[in-house]
């Protein structure tokens, strides 16, 4: 059988690992795909090339397909998310000046307490906090706002969100251009090595099950190339399952570090994959539960309710009609294609394509295609829950 040539764009982040593993360990080849990975210099460039068909698939920030389908930000096009490639994996850090002020006011960095941390952060800042994120349509920005807006003393003029390319984050902190930043690994750990910054929270402490990256594809292309889409979903599913096994972690670090796709040293890849994060340069790394999840608890399933959650945030930002946007967004998260693709593998899948986001405080058994499966936890730090089905 002749293999299908496909091009996939990605940014060299640790969470592009499923793509690299799918290629290097031949999961893609087994599915009949001749997969070429194309490194992209920015999210904008990746978006443009996907919109115009220079690449077939893309490793995307989870809000990007929805923003593009809603016609926001430069090149728009109907983009679908075929699956979630990773859940969580971001870190929030502060400049050393801010860290000193916060510690001086009695705050202790336990790396797991959003409420105490926002209180300390907002108490010591006497000017708007400049906060760096990698892209306007990113889960990073959504998590930051979800976190800070909950604080009783928060007001919009307390913060200013700016976009800084992740490799420049450390320098911006050192130069005093940023007070706070939120990035995906390895750039949080790299920022510590190159500046006096400290990490104050993992993204997972704000939302325990935040869809971080998705596999994006043009809607029309997906309609015309169902075989390639199904094969790609299966290849990435197998790669994610492989990555999820703890005994494979050392080998995964080796493969990713050796791979020309990532061009990062072992010590930059290791913290995210092992979930052991140091909060300051030279400090001991602490285990952080659920730091970056490639596969566990149906992590790859594109929940329509996740799309609704993202859509509501974008609607608020841009003053869009909530229900109309939600309808478009839900259609982007292709749980239907995901189910179709995995059916031949006999994979246990959730019974519903919708869940109440934030409702699972612990792991819970839910109905699935093969009886039962374990999901959760997926709490928000504030205890908020989002039942989108109930509202409609």
């Amino acid at each position, binding site marked *: 059988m002749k293999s299908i040539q496909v091009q996939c764009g990605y940014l060299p982040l640790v969470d592009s690992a499923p793509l690299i593993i799918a290629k290097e360990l031949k999961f893609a080849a087994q599915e009949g795909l001749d997969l070429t990975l194309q490194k992209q*210099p*920015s*999210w*904008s*460039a990746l978006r*443009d*090339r996907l919109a*115009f068909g*220079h690449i077939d698939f893309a490793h995307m920030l989870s809000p990007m397909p929805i923003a593009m389908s809603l016609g*926001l*930000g*430069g*090149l728009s096009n109907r983009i679908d998310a075929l699956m979630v490639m990773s859940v969580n994996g971001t870190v929030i850090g502060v400049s050393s000046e801010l860290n000193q002020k916060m510690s001086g006011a009695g705050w202790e960095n336990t790396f797991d307490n959003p409420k105490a941390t926002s209180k300390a952060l907002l108490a010591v800042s006497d000017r708007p906090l400049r906060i760096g994120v*990698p*892209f*306007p*349509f990113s889960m990073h920005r959504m998590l930051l706002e979800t976190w800070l807006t909950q604080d009783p003393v928060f007001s919009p003029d307390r913060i200013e*969100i*700016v*976009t*800084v*390319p992740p*490799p*420049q984050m450390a320098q911006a902190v050192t130069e005093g*251009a940023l007070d706070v930043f939120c990035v995906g690994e390895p750039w949080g750990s790299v920022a510590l090595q190159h500046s006096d910054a400290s990490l104050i929270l993992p993204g997972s402490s704000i939302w325990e099950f935040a869809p971080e990256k998705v596999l994006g594809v043009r809607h029309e292309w997906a309609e015309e190339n169902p075989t390639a889409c199904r094969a790609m979903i299966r290849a990435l599913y197998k790669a994610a399952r492989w990555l999820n096994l703890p005994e494979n972690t050392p080998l995964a670090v080796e493969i990713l570090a050796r791979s020309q796709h990532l061009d990062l040293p072992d010590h930059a890849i290791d913290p995210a994959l092992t979930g052991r994060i140091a909060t300051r340069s030279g400090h001991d790394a602490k285990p952080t539960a659920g730091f970056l999840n490639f596969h566990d608890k149906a992590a790859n399933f594109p929940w329509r309710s996740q799309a609704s959650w993202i859509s509501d945030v974008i609607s608020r*930002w841009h003053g869009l009609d909530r229900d109309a946007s939600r309808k478009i967004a839900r259609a982007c998260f292709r749980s239907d294609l995901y189910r179709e693709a995995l059916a031949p593998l006999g994979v246990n899948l959730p019974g519903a394509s919708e869940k109440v986001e934030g409702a699972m405080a612990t792991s819970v058994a839910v109905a699935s295609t093969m009886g039962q499966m374990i999901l959760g936890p997926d709490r928000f730090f504030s205890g908020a829950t989002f039942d989108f089905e109930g509202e409609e």
Partner: protein
Amino acid sequence: MQTDLKILVVEDDPQKARDIIDALTDGGWTNLSVIGSAGALERTITTQDPDIILIDLANPDRDTLEHLGLVSNARNRPVAMFVDRTDDAMTQAAISAGVSAYVVNGLMKDRIKPVLETAIARFGMFAKMQSELDAAKQALTDRKTIDRAKGLLIRARNISEDEAYNLLRKTAMDQGRKVIDVATALVTAAELLQ
């Protein structure tokens, strides 16, 4: 007639920046400025108030520029990537050439097109030159490594240069690898053993 358009070029390679400026000047635009990095982007947009910003498609600072258009509404200067949906071919050509244009304050389409066309022609030339240059550099580096590997073999086995090359080639064929990969492995191993 075109002199009233203010064009800002974001480009950190001075030679490339000069070439773009020359091309635009030849096209009749004279109100031009260049900045090297996007660190100063926000300030420059505020102080210079350009109508069009031209930036390399591959420049990582593009994400920062996008943000200015989407989030910083307070500054009252909407910055948007220029996309002409009635003329997809031009946007496609821009992406292939590696240039993107951002429009400030929603400028008229027919005034932007000639600027972008000039930029596309110039950037397209860079892209071609760059890939040729990269290929030439790589070939030169590869040849140096292969020469060093041959030298090692000549000394170690007391054979001729031709025999050394044939040995490298045969080993590469037997192992299904490229000659350069075998040569690199040999040179690296020799360095470690020294």
